[in-house]
């Protein structure tokens, strides 16, 4: 059976999705990146191989997410794609008439505006993480509420408190203040959800033409309280796709399928065996000019596979030879 693999290596989680030749999801995987993108990609490959039927033949691999270039070299990707395009393509396959895609991940959040099946505008959070998953994670930890429990307790709120969501630092002092005044944890938690949603629309969604149908995806979409807060803010139904947390990986797989169909070359996929290989990463400061770029390199058995981080082509060129 022909299949296509999409790998989305984000800052917090690593996602893998395998689609068959009819673009139907065969299996998927959701792992925590834990700051070790290489190991997680390797571990992900090992695990997903066990989940796949024997006769599956991987005909194309694509990587996406913030570690897409690194992951691309490790697995031998046929396509390395940015996460905005990947998310949009996956959502369009799920709901062709979608007009607005909201994606909130671990370290960044995006909005994608679609008209007639084509992306017409997008936005990403610019400077801070106040509108993202790590903001919730951090605050849940402070209130000693597990992130699983978060959603359930926030939904139980009947009089949410108003929390300044502009900045995590202000939000935190606001929360402590409300807590010390005796507000219920439930109300503080839901107030936090509303703050995140407000911040998202003031920051990422600023000036965007938001129209229904609205699809909400990314890891934060697990949190039903955020879904509710979004619906209240937009005054519209917010659709959460069944595989919302792996949409980036699905999109990457769809894109590589399209790419392979349009090309005459076979896949560059290095096989599931790459999970056994010991890759070595290191970095150095380039002294060729006063820019002093920090160059990171990935090597295997003393041979450099790829380098990143330069402001010029000096080291990038070296890696291909």
């Amino acid at each position: 059976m022909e299949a296509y693999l999409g790998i989305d290596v984000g800052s917090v989680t690593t996602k893998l999705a395998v689609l068959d030749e009819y673009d139907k999801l065969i299996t998927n995987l959701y792992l925590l990146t834990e700051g070790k993108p290489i190991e997680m990609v390797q571990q992900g490959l090992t695990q997903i191989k066990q989940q796949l039927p024997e006769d599956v033949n991987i005909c194309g691999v694509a990587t996406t997410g913030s570690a897409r270039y690194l992951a691309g070299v490790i697995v031998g990707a046929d396509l390395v794609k940015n996460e905005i395009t990947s998310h949009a393509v996956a959502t369009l396959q799920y709901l062709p008439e979608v007009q607005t895609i909201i994606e909130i991940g671990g370290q960044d959040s995006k909005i994608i505006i679609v008209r007639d099946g084509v992306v017409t505008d997008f936005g990403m959070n610019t400077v801070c993480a106040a509108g993202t998953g790590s903001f919730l994670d951090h605050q849940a930890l402070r209130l000693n509420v597990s992130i699983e429990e978060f959603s359930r307790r926030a939904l139980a709120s009947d009089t949410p408190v108003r929390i300044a969501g502009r900045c995590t630092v202000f939000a935190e002092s606001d929360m402590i203040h409300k807590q010390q005044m005796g507000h219920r944890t439930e109300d503080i938690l839901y107030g936090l959800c509303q703050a995140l949603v407000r911040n998202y629309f003031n920051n990422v969604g600023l000036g965007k033409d938001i129209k229904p149908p609205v699809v909400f995806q990314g890891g934060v979409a697990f949190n039903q309280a955020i879904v509710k807060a979004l619906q209240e803010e937009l005054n519209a139904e917010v659709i959460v796709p069944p595989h919302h947390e792996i949409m980036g990986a699905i999109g990457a797989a769809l894109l590589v399928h399209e790419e392979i169909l349009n090309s005459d070359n076979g896949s560059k996929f290095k096989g599931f065996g790459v999970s056994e290989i010991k890759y070595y990463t290191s970095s150095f400061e380039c002294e060729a000019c006063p820019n002093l770029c920090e160059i990171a390199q990935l090597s295997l058995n003393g041979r450099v596979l790829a380098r990143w981080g330069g402001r010029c082509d000096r080291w990038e060129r070296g890696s291909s030879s």
Partner: protein
Amino acid sequence: MIRIGIPRALLYYQYYPMWKTFFEELGAEVVVSPPTTQVMLASGSSRVVADTCLPVKVFLGHILALVGKCDYIFVPAIRSVESKVYNCSKFLGLPDLTRAVIPESPPILDIDIDINKGKRNLYQAIYQLGRHLTWYPLRVRRASQAAWQAHLNYHQLMSSRNLTPPQVIERISGTAEAEANSSYLISAQATIAVIGHPYLLYDEHVNHRLIHRLEQAHNRVLTPEMLSTEELQSAIARLVGRAYWTYEEEVVGAGAHYLQSGADGVIGIIAFGCGPDSVMMDVVRQQASRLKATPFMSLTLEEHTAEAGIVTRLEAFLDMIHRRKRSQVKTCV
């Protein structure tokens, strides 16, 4: 021979051929600071408070790079180059700021340019500047005429042959390959207009080689300098009536023009901490969302911009344009 330093920053890209001609006609040697590096940016920003805008920090880095390499440094205060249109306060105070924060700098040659004060005032200012190099008013006059001619030629070359300021400056200095590299144009997938001030568009360190990246991805790149003054002014007139800021043409004028014709997508570049830009680019953004015809994206450049942020946005923007073009082709078929 007297050596006059010119920082490769801020208004360099608009006026360098003019300044160079003026000083050389008066027998001086012109020394230009090297392209921006991380060390220059860091040294410039170490002299001012953190809130200072990025382009001024870069500028001061260039001044520091010229210390010890010349006898004077030329820092004009350009207040206004058009009737009742004013420049950002950072430009007005540039000579004073430079003297205050870089005391070790060689003497600063400054000149106050303010068209609102009349022609006589302008000529006097030019003579005063020329006095540093000659006592003969006639030589100053000839030098300023030659300089003005060089300036007109410079802008004419850019708009008539679709060249960028660095390309024309290289030609004038005789270091360039004769023609602009056009080999990528044949395979160009899309035409992207990049708008903003020249000191952001052509400083490759500050913008992370934005134009280079666009060309590498097989796009034809258009910039504000490739439009004529008439095209820019009529675009401004259509959108906002009349300009408020000096150098509004390269943002609002070019933006309004390219949103309506000639480009598949428009990218606006602004510097973090720039007041006028934050207003002007928003005017362009609003126009883009009114027209809904040409995709628009603005990128904010900061001192610590991680390359990844720029690369991801650029990739997504180009994908959006390419996929859009492809779907339009499909519909037509």
